[in-house]
């Protein structure tokens, strides 16, 4: 088991590719995307009624090497600033295999 950073980004479905591009560029090795979520934040509720698919929320989960975490969070910051959403960083251990 080795220590990793657990990065979790809540973002509109239409902007998921911006987040995954950051992760790929940073060479974190992988990520998982949860779809079909909804939520509320500073900019009001994002209703999940989906008349407009434009309001689906996704969550991108990435376990990454602690050495790379700072570069990733720096690269995520402008995306979150411009398009909204939330980024969280926590600690976890990776089950080696």
């Amino acid at each position, binding site marked *: 088991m080795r220590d990793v950073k657990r990065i979790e980004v809540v973002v*509109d479905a*239409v*902007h998921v590719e911006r987040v995954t591009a950051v992760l790929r560029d940073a060479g974190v090795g992988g990520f998982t995307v949860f779809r*079909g979520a909804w939520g509320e934040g500073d*900019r*009001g*509720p994002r*209703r*999940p*009624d*989906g*008349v*407009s*698919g*434009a*309001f*689906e929320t996704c969550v991108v989960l990435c376990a990454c090497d602690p050495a790379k975490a700072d570069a990733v969070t720096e690269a995520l910051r402008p995306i979150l*600033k*411009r*398009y*909204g959403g939330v980024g969280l960083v926590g600690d976890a251990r990776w089950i080696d295999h």
Partner: protein
Amino acid sequence: MDVTLLMDNLRTPAILFFGLGVLAAVLKSDLTLPQPIPRLLSIYLLMAIGLHGGVELVRSEPGLRVALILLAAVGLAAAIPVWSFFLLRWRLGVADAAAVAATYGSISAVTFITADNFLDSLNHPDPAYQPGGYMVAAMALMESPAIVVGVLLARFFSTPTTDGDTPPTRQRTDWGELMREAFLNGAVVVLVGSLVVGMLIGEAGWESVAPFAYDPFKGVLCLFLLDMGLVAARRLGDLKRCGPALLGFAVLSAPAHAALGIAAAWLLGVGPGDALLLAVLAGSASYIAVPAAMRLAVPDANPGLYVTMSLAVTFPLNITAGIPLYLTAIEWLWG
């Protein structure tokens, strides 16, 4: 307004199901049609209306009048956002005003379909009540221009942010991405694509797909409007954030823009069927293609405003009272 027309409209199955949806939501029923059911239904409706329009387009002879109708349609879609923007600036910031303006310049395909359905249910003896297949092309052409105009307005009138370390967001608009969103939005692609397919398949092809794309169409519309009723009514609570001025815009812009559509139709000398659809296209507001594009290009605009106005006010008004009202006006003018 001709009250008989109003009653006729309110008693079509589609509008009754819309009412059922509204009622269920108001009574706080837990009824929902979860995604991707609405997505499937709306793709179906766009595909079916596109195919049928394409087939009709080939059946009719093209001519100068059709070209002029299409031109008028695009002109309306591009002009409405401009005057709306300046009117709205009175109350809203640049980003919100631009987004609302684009919303009202573009169109609502379901409003169009509901009007078409209503015309059909009238069973009117006059063939001029039957709209032409080119009206679907007009709808397709009206989806995107308002998006481009709205984004141009937002860019042109935005002031650089004073916050030093933030690059002004407007400067970073990715135009490639935006054009893709405006002209290649899923809804636009299905509609335009099906229209073209409809033009290519010929009568035999149409016959082979009609049991899917034509026969059950009105029933599917009922199911979709049930969902639209739920969705629209559940947003009624968000209206208080809009304030009376915006509410007024949402209520009054529909007949005002529809009047422009009727005027254009009258000048071009088209029949009442085409005129009603042009009125409805001008008077309706988008809640699919435009919000998707605004998320990308004007992310600081508040969807709580533009989607709510379009979905919870303009859409229900148009499909219930608007359609018979516009037809009353048309019959009065044409007759």
